[in-house]
């Protein structure tokens, strides 16, 4: 078992596991965000629960942050090693004849998603951590002094989608995430060694996920932009 991360297969296995974990997270994130379209109150209640329940805040959140950092760092490590394996390039290549654009550009699509996550952290995560753990306001209320003021989460979400530039950046990032997932989800099964008749069915689901979830996020952004 020792040194498994030093092997090419071990690194890909770890990459796939972190990817599958992040996809589970993305699905639950989408499930909560879509509530903002149907029921702002439910969205507020669930957001408050997610933001204050200790298991999520102190156990799952650090695991998630580790997973995100690990996935990106390992992605760059693999790319570096792959580039080292062919120092002299071909004069003529026809990659489109034997592979998809998505499969050849995972670093590019991943880098755009990384840039988006920096924006996302500045927009939501850092202010949230500041409010809760530096200011010390764990109430989740619009006005902490007024218990009747209601939770602030829905208003914060809607406020962020006022800017057409932010909505456009959001949409472009999720289109690239979709392209990333169209190859990545399938690829993760292969990397963990799963390739049988059941996995072929799962691969169909992976396409639905890779297109459906990012489109859903874009829909949420557009919905709030046009309705507020």
């Amino acid at each position, binding site marked *: *078992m020792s040194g*498994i991360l030093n*092997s*090419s*297969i*071990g*690194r*890909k*296995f770890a990459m796939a596991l972190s990817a599958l974990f992040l996809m589970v997270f993305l699905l639950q994130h989408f499930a909560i965000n879509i509530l903002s379209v149907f029921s702002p109150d439910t969205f507020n209640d669930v957001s408050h629960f997610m933001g204050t329940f200790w298991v999520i805040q102190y156990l799952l959140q650090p695991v998630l942050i580790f997973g995100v950092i690990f996935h990106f760092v390992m992605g760059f490590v*693999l790319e570096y*090693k*792959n580039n*080292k*394996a*062919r*120092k*002299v*390039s*071909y*004069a*003529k*290549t*026809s*990659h489109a*004849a*034997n*592979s*998809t654009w998505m*499969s*050849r550009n*995972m670093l590019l699509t991943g880098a755009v998603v990384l840039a988006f996550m920096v924006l996302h952290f500045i927009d939501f995560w850092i202010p949230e951590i500041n409010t809760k753990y530096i200011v010390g306001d764990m109430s989740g209320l619009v006005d902490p002094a007024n218990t009747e003021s209601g939770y602030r989460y829905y208003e914060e979400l809607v406020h962020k989608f006022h800017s057409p530039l932010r909505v456009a950046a959001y949409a472009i990032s999720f289109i690239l995430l979709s392209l990333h997932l169209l*190859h990545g989800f*399938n*690829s993760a*099964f*292969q*990397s*963990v*060694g*799963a*390739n049988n008749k059941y996995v072929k069915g799962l691969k169909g689901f992976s396409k639905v996920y890779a297109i459906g979830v990012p489109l859903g996020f874009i829909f949420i952004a557009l919905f709030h932009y046009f309705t507020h």
Partner: protein
Amino acid sequence: MNLTLKIWRQKSANDKGKIVDYPVSGISPDMSFLEMLDVLNQELIEKGESPVVFDHDCREGICGSCSLYINGRAHGPQTKITACQLHMRSFEDGETIYIEPWRAEAFPVIKDLMVDRTSFDRIQQAGGFISVNTSGNTQDANAIPIEKENADKAFDAATCIGCGACVASCKNSSAMLFVSAKVSQFALLPQGQVEATDRVLNMVKQMDEEGFGNCTNTGACEVECPKGISLENIARMNREYLTASLKG
């Protein structure tokens, strides 16, 4: 047919190398690609120039010697054939054809289009075999019943001719299709079980040491493999490797 060939010329492993243009004429569409290169080489020899060095042996698509990267694809524009089985009718009259060697740090160029593929030999030597005592009373392999499905898959994996088209086609110069075929042909058979753990660990270790890249599942290797070796073998090797790693 009249053609313009853009061929990689490199005097030795240490030479920098460059693409050189060669016009050729009077090529029959029924010639094989290697026969077309023979025509060019005959002209070069008659002119007192050095002929283009390229690997070839059986010219029947069996030995895996030919290793040409033609117009951006391993073994040229057709699928499931080697360069020796490619015919000039696959090209247009007047076409410009790029001919390059396999590109990978683990396949250094020896001269022109010939590369050193002994890294594959070293991977095989690390575990691509079964140890059978030849004492005279060895059991007949056919005496052991094997499921038809597994026998077919093992046979398919064993058809790998080790040409290296998978490495040449992969954007990462990964050798995983080759290694997985060699691992699979034994992993699927009872005779391969005794040394299964050591085999996959040692072969993957050797593959990594040779400097091949990582598999990113683009599938280019499977498309360009002249024997149609399936990506399913890579998934099997991954399973074998991860299980073997847990066993120690």
